[in-house]
């Protein structure tokens, strides 16, 4: 079969000593980058581009791809250890991952995340190799209307994410949507809610918001109750999940992989939805959903697998079509063009070595991530033993430098401090920050796609129900909402009464 000869070609390229070394370097740097708050794959790939000038295109792209999925993976490490999501995709991991760390199960959480990511990455790689070209068509089926409906579905997931009051969760989603409208309007170029403040004209950066309401607010919150914090940090449990935990995670990993792979292919950063969708699914399937948000291992295994699967499959539109689905992939386009490879449908036939070499290197990269990260778990967990009085100034320092380096903008650091205050207020008023972040991430796309769809349909809302995929997605959204809302409203009532009796 063609696939096998192609894969043989790919592994022939990827397994050369030089490319193996580059893949390792990429994954290693990526992991470190991911662990540093703020410094995302975009800044790193941009900075390391000139270094790759001396390397041949295949090697350079293998290394840059390694940085990308390494960083995607590393972002979860901070989410688990210090409750700072490094990437939009690791917001969900904070929910149960950090709770597990607080219970002394940081090692288990990190371990299952590494193992789940590896399995998901391997499956997604096979998927790209076998079905890359036909799957590209899926990306093209998604016009603005379908995308809008997908985002609506995503927002319904956010309702399910909530632990406490549904009313407060919806309020947070709406607040997130509201924050996402800050900045220059895409259609008209008018500035919205920027108060004439130039740094706001491109909107709020995700990292600024996430670092503020998660990172800074968490530090401030931890400072006020030293007792609970230190007790937590004395216990360092097992470093790897045991058989029972593996058994619990098998299903979530499989389901997360499927969800993440499909959503990753979609243009416009569909991969972001993967972890949220997976978490929602696991919470709904669980016998005892109340465990979620209190350190349920399924809540880490599923989303982490979805995250990594999506990171891999988001290469499909880039490799087969030459159209980048998100900002990191756009940078990869830049990297390819700098190396004289013009990304497009021709890459597969014109540069089979590059195409199949990269795919083979993805699997190798995933293996390397596992090899790099399993020993590191011990180190990360030991870091938790650093007394908090030293840990928090270090976290703040890293955050400040990281945020500064996103845009080389000091204002971003000050804005993060502001959102730290904002996030602290949210905590004090009993709001959950996770739905807010999801609302924020989806908000920009939601508005953009809705307005695009309406311009194309000349203002007819029927476009959302006339197109079959869009209608299907809206139906799923409705079902999720009904299923999520009905029992939790009645349950919420019960909880309220039992707590006060």
């Amino acid at each position, binding site marked *: 079969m063609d696939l096998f000869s192609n894969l043989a070609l790919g592994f022939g390229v990827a397994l050369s000593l030089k490319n193996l070394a580059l893949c390792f370097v990429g994954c290693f740097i990526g992991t470190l980058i991911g662990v540093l708050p703020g410094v995302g794959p975009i*800044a790193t790939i941009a*900075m*390391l581009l000139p270094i790759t000038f001396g390397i041949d295109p295949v090697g350079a792209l293998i290394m840059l791809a390694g940085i990308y999925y390494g960083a995607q993976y590393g972002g979860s490490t901070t989410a688990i250890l210090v409750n700072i999501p490094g990437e939009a995709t690791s917001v969900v991991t904070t929910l149960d991952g950090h709770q597990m760390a607080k219970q002394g199960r940081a090692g288990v959480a990190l371990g299952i995340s590494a193992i789940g990511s590896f399995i998901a990455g391997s499956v997604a790689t096979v998927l790209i190799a076998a079905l890359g070209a036909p799957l590209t068509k899926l990306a093209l089926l998604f016009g603005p209307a379908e995308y809008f409906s997908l985002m609506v579905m995503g927002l319904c997931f956010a309702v399910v994410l909530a632990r406490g009051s549904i*009313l*407060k969760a*919806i*309020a947070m989603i*709406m*607040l997130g*949507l*509201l924050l996402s*409208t800050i900045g220059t309007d895409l*259609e*008209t170029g*008018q500035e*919205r*809610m920027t*108060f*004439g*403040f*130039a740094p706001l004209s491109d909107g709020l950066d995700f990292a600024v918001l996430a670092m503020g309401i998660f990172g*800074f607010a968490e530090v*401030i919150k931890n*400072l*006020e109750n*030293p007792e609970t914090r230190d007790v937590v940090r004395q216990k360092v449990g097992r470093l790897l999940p045991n058989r029972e935990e593996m058994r619990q995670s098998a299903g979530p990993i499989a389901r997360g992989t499927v969800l993440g792979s499909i959503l990753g292919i979609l243009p416009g950063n569909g991969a972001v939805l993967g972890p949220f969708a997976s978490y929602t699914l696991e919470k709904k399937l669980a016998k005892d959903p109340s465990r979620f948000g209190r350190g349920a291992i399924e809540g880490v295994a599923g989303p982490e697998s979805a995250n990594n699967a999506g990171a891999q499959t988001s290469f499909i539109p880039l490799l087969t079509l030459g159209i980048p689905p998100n900002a990191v992939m756009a940078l990869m386009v830049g990297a390819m063009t700098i190396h004289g490879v013009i990304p497009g449908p021709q890459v597969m036939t014109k540069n089979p070595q590059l195409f199949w070499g990269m795919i083979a290197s993805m699997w190798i990269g995933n293996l390397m991530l596992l090899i790099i990260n399993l020993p590191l778990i011990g180190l990360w967990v030991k870091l938790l033993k650093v*007394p908090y*009085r030293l840990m*928090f*100034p*270090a976290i*703040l*320092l890293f*955050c*400040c*430098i990281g945020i*500064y*380096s996103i845009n*080389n903008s*000091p204002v971003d*650091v*000050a804005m993060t*401090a502001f959102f*730290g*205050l904002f996030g602290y*207020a949210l905590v*004090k*008023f*009993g709001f959950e920050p996770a739905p807010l972040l999801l609302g924020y991430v989806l908000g920009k796309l939601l*508005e953009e796609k*809705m*307005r695009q769809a*309406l*311009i194309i349909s*000349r*203002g*007819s*809302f029927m476009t959302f129900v006339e197109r079959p995929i869009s209608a299907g997605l809206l139906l799923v959204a409705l079902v999720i909402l009904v299923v999520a809302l009905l029992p939790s409203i009645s349950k919420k009532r019960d909880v*309220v009464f039992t*707590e006060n009796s």
Partner: protein
Amino acid sequence: MGKFRIASPQDFAGGLFLIAIGLGAYWASSNLGMGTLRAMGPGMLPKSLAVIVAGLGALLLLTSFRVEGPELERWSIRGLFFVLLGSCLFALTIRGSDITGTPERVASAMLIASVIFLAALFVATRMGIATDGHAVRAGMLAAYVAAVFVIYHVAPVIDLSFPAIGLIAAGPLVAIVSAFASPETKWGEVIIFATFMTALCAGLFKYALGLPIPLAPWLLGY
């Protein structure tokens, strides 16, 4: 309902918070055209969302009278203040800043007012003056806002620019200032640790990653 009583103070405050944000956002987007549902203007979504947020806030406010809920938690002013002060100082000094625009002036006025305010608070606690109780807190908040207002208007007279001290100095600055946030801080330890972490960060971010972050413009020229 009978007697007027707030059953859930946390939700009550949360409701007020949302209403304030909603109203603020509506005001901030008042200059934007709504358009029509068929041809949406830039203001359509921000304004509708602002109304929805305020509406949900009102709903939360209403339920807080009926449904029992937790008390409002105390705010830890010390942690909040030094953590934010540390990072703001980093922002102001890493590349230096001239205070020209309105937002920068408001921010620096708030910064200065906060320092004065905290000094006053410290003195008051030492002298045994009670800083607890709602009335005192409300008074303090009012005094703070007034101070910001006064400094903002005096600010053009004072030069509020900050020098560019680069990572070498701004790094320890953020670590040491934020260390004030914890009562457990041991100063010798913090200073050594801050120096070490800064050196590590300089090596990592500046040299290993090659990020264009100013290291020490006054010493090295970059």
